[in-house]
């Protein structure tokens, strides 16, 4: 496995971010892992690090929660798809969620999503997704 990939966690739940970060760090197969507490923060980070070229910190894997204040997961996906379609195509976006509301699934299904993961994140789930 290559160790170049960076991960971005987008979730307002700091404890959930802490768990995911620790799980990913312990795997020690990724370059870096960062977290953003809402869609807007994440979007700013991606715009800063992935335009005009993909910089070192440009996340290639995103774990996205759907319900967050300020900018939720759906709005984030909408903005990202509009502003950076090439980015959305090139990299992986996983929905990391605690509930499986069918309405949420349906709404998220409108966007290019690489998979759904039910919290909490653990080593097995990450490995399964990355392979």
């Amino acid at each position: 496995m290559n160790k170049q990939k960076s991960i971005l966690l987008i979730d307002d739940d700091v404890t959930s971010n802490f768990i995911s970060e620790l799980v990913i760090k312990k795997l020690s197969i990724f370059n870096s892992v960062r977290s953003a507490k809402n869609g807007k923060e994440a979007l700013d980070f991606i715009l800063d690090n992935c335009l005009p070229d993909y910089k070192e910190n440009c996340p290639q894997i995103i774990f996205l929660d759907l319900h967050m204040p300020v900018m939720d997961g759906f709005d984030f996906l909408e903005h990202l798809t509009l502003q950076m379609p090439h980015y959305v195509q090139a990299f992986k976006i996983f929905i990391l969620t605690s509930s499986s509301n069918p309405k949420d699934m349906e709404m998220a299904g409108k966007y290019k999503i690489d998979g759904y993961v039910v919290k909490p994140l653990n080593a097995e789930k990450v490995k399964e997704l990355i392979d």
Partner: protein
Amino acid sequence: MEEVKEFFLKLLMNEAWPARWFCGRWTNFHGWLYILSSITIWAAYFAIPLSFFYLISKRKDEMPFVKILWLFILFILSCGLTHFIDALIFWYPVYRLSAFVLFITAIISWFAVISLYKVLPLALNLKSPLQLESIVVERTKQLEESNNTLTRLNEEMDNFIYSASHDLKSPINNIEGLIQLLKDELENDNDPVIINDLIRRIESSTMRVKGTIVNLTDIVKVQTKPYDDVKEVSIRDLIEEIIDENEILVRLNAVMFRFDLKMETVLYSRQALKSVLYNLIVNAIKYRSPFRLPEIDIYCGYNADNRIEIIIQDNGLGIDLNVNKDRLFTLFKRFHDHVEGSGIGLYMIKKIIENKGGKITVESTVDVGTAFKIII
């Protein structure tokens, strides 16, 4: 008595009178006009009951006043019979029979009169097809409305369940994840700093579950509370009470309150109104702008539709309604993350107001302020 006996014994006999043709001076035209008209009337008086009879037999169960209709059939038939006998007398002068049939007709006609008077009030209350139609239309509309309300309530209930389960699941999932990490840590590195940190996080997640359950209980209370302490409530007194209860928050933020009360009191449940205004005022201070001191304007008066409205206007952060309007009053939904909040306040307010037949709306501009308008 003799006369009566003779009358009935000779009922069908015609020995005592001449046939009508030979009694007086009838011209052919006069006589036949009399006879044919009488026969025609009799035919008609026979045909009318026939159609009534047909009507009754076809719509047996749904015809109102069937008994009186039978009486009418008899009445018309006997009337017809008197005309028939009247014509018959031109050849057979059966004057006794004629008198007898007239007598029977008289009795039946008075039975008809009396029964008709009896059912008259009932008949007056009968709905015409047009009235019935408009009743059906009205009822259908009511049914549609209640169906819509039920659908909306059902949807709300669905959302409530998803939101509640989401907010319960999140910390429980975290606890599950933290325990996995704790086990892993205990088996491998056994770093006491990390172990303590994980335990502390498990504890705080447990508190979060408890907090959510308390919130849910509060919501159920709001839904079932009767709020029957309805009386004249002074808006100014109520707001001052709320300010007193949040003295530190108000003083730390140097909040300015302005009143524009076209009416000083409203007739409402004091408890309900306090919960609503409490939430709105605390929100207005919590989500204040960092660049200016909070100012809260409280208005109460009649709106254009002559209903009482209370407006709580602030100069705080504001909410982007283009994005959030539909979700503003939903459970556990939060729009700012820099201060603590449970996301149940506006949901509860909406429930309280709507349960009492009112409405709450919001107008807001980011970085200018928010106005909540309550129509009670």
